[in-house]
């Protein structure tokens, strides 16, 4: 049987596991909600882009977790198990959405990137522009970068949430930042003072 080394999250969730072993599923789920409700929602937000759809996906994920909680077998840490359920739920929803619209068409994405790369409109807020630039990043960079800032720059947490090695997360972050810097410079906004004033 596969043994899982006790990570920080594993140690932190030991109380939940003990409650589950004692058959107290209700109190265990209360603790799960307390610790993971926001994280699951943020993960769904980073994967789904749309906040309403993210809320639906988070609700469905947490409901699924509630139903599956009595069967949690500790083969993976609780956090990994929870994030996997949430990710799968989001990916299913994204697949379903892809059937409905063609927003993820490469041609449409290129058009969106071209629109963002165009000269900024007069009076457009720098931070709004930055948000648009982030939205126009390739999907894997956008997800990683977004979640990195949502999770207060914790690479380990982002790795756990996305189910990827920390090295991959660091690489994606580096490339995402490099791409952003490049696009910012291409728009003539490469002067750091411009951003410092707006971010202050």
């Amino acid at each position, binding site marked *: 049987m596969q043994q899982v080394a006790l990570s920080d999250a594993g140690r932190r969730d030991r109380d939940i596991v003990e409650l589950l072993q004692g058959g107290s599923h209700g109190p265990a789920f209360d603790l799960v909600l307390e610790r993971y409700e926001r994280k699951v929602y943020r993960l769904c937000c980073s994967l789904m882009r749309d906040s309403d759809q993210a809320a639906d996906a988070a609700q469905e994920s947490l409901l699924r977790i509630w139903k599956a909680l009595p069967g949690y077998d500790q083969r993976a840490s609780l956090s990994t198990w929870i994030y996997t359920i949430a990710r799968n739920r989001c990916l299913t929803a994204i697949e379903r959405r892809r059937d409905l619209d063609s927003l993820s068409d490469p041609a449409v994405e290129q058009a969106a990137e071209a629109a963002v790369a165009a000269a900024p409109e007069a009076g457009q807020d720098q931070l709004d522009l930055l948000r648009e630039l982030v939205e126009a990043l390739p999907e894997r960079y956008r997800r990683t970068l977004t979640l990195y800032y949502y999770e207060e720059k914790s690479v380990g947490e982002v790795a756990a949430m996305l189910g990827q090695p920390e090295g991959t997360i660091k690489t994606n972050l580096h490339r995402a930042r490099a791409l952003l810097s490049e696009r910012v410079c291409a728009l003539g906004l490469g002067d*750091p003072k411009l951003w*410092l004033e707006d971010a202050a």
Partner: protein
Amino acid sequence: MNMPRDPLDGALDQALDRALAKTLTAPGLPAGFREQLRAAVVRTVPEDRAQLRAALEREHAVQLAELQDGYVLLRQRTLGTLIGAGFAAGLAVTFALPWLKAHFGDNGVFALPVIGVVIGLVLSLSVWWQRSSLARSLS
């Protein structure tokens, strides 16, 4: 070949980092999120309980039917055995009694109950022995 990095790039990276931290703020839970979830959880519980109850009732009904079938079969076999044994005993007495009277005189009538008692004791002892040895092996 790597392009030489502009010294301003480091400053730009830092500035963008601060701007990103300000732009990409973690979204808060939508209003009523927890309440909706709780309501959904509560809705699943009766459904699950009802399903569980129905499954248990089905299982109970199947077990009960098996038990009843077994009981009826046992009663039928017992009744059959009793009727068969009665007829066999009557037949045996009909044929054996004249022979016993011829060999043992008037006391021959008592020989049949004695034989019955002996056979009964042998059967009882064998059953008792089997059960006690079964009990020993189980313990």
